[in-house]
């Protein structure tokens, strides 16, 4: 995994697979504490205590197509390489919370990556999911909540390419406003598309 946005895409998929109705993703950039914290919590089916305890072991997985799972182990490794840690809290029938902490200034902390791209693909693949994304920096907080967004876009389907593009632009511009770390690759391409229409 090259960056944090890809980890988000990966871990959020676990929540969807666990039958979550709501997935909440929170990123906090806390320069005062030299901390970069990512929290992904869901109201999915949760894990048995035994399973939760060994879930960052690469040889543990729920899948049946192969015998290992690397999503959480890779995230744990990246946290630990950057002076942080990974914590997983889960309650059966209630949900799961994954907390990944990195030292903000650590040279080995993965870059944030293209967060709008991750969010637009989560929306594309799960239009009915209640997705909440919060990003806090020293300059402010941005919240993207699909329930709220749906009130504003009316009957437009969230997974329509044009709507995805619009949401992506909205997220990107708001992240820029609060000075959030974010690397968008398609920014200029998206703007170009906007102009062409």
């Amino acid at each position: 995994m090259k960056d944090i946005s890809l980890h988000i895409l990966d871990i959020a998929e676990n929540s969807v697979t666990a039958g979550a109705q709501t997935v909440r993703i929170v990123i906090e950039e806390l320069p005062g504490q030299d901390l970069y914290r990512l929290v992904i919590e869901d109201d999915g089916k949760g894990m048995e205590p035994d399973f939760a305890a060994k879930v960052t072991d690469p040889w543990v997985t729920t899948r049946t197509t192969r015998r290992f799972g690397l999503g959480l182990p890779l995230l744990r490794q990246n946290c630990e390489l950057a002076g942080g840690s990974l914590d997983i809290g889960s309650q059966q029938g209630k949900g799961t919370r994954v907390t990944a902490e990195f030292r903000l200034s650590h040279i080995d902390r993965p870059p944030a990556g293209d967060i709008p791209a991750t969010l637009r693909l989560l929306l594309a693949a799960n239009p009915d999911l209640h997705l909440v994304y919060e990003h806090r920096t020293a300059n402010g907080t941005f919240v993207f909540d699909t329930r709220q967004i749906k009130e504003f876009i009316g009957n437009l389907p969230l997974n329509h390419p044009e709507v995805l593009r619009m949401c992506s632009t909205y997220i990107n511009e708001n992240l820029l406003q609060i000075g959030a770390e974010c690397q968008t690759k398609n920014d200029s391409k998206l703007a170009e598309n906007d102009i062409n229409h």
Partner: protein
Amino acid sequence: MIHRIKNKRTMTKITSLADLRRKSEELKRRIDLREKSEHTENLIQVKVAMATCGIASGARETMDYLIEELDKRKIDAVVTQTGCMGYCYAEPTIEVKLPGQEPVVFGYVNTKKAKEIIEKYILNGELVDGIIPQNYQTINEKK
């Protein structure tokens, strides 16, 4: 010229929820809002494998590209994602199901391959390299 584009860009800025509402109203007038989910059997269905293996190999770019490109070419398709199909060695993998046909799985689908799949397989029904045969066995299945 640059100045004109700049102006247009500022006009399309979407920073507040009010901007989002205004842009949505504009989209509603412009885009075709057929209810896609009601007749999926007539649609081209594309599934992108998006487990850890797929994501690490670039499946996000592939899916992004497929959504954009199919929309641009006005091809009636739904792009969704699926878990690991067991072909981790060949990620990113996608499954394409043309209406009334058996699904076909393609491996090593970067954006270049995705373009080829759209142009040859989706538009013309022509097979392209990179198909993962149905009788392929994963390491775990092999006796």
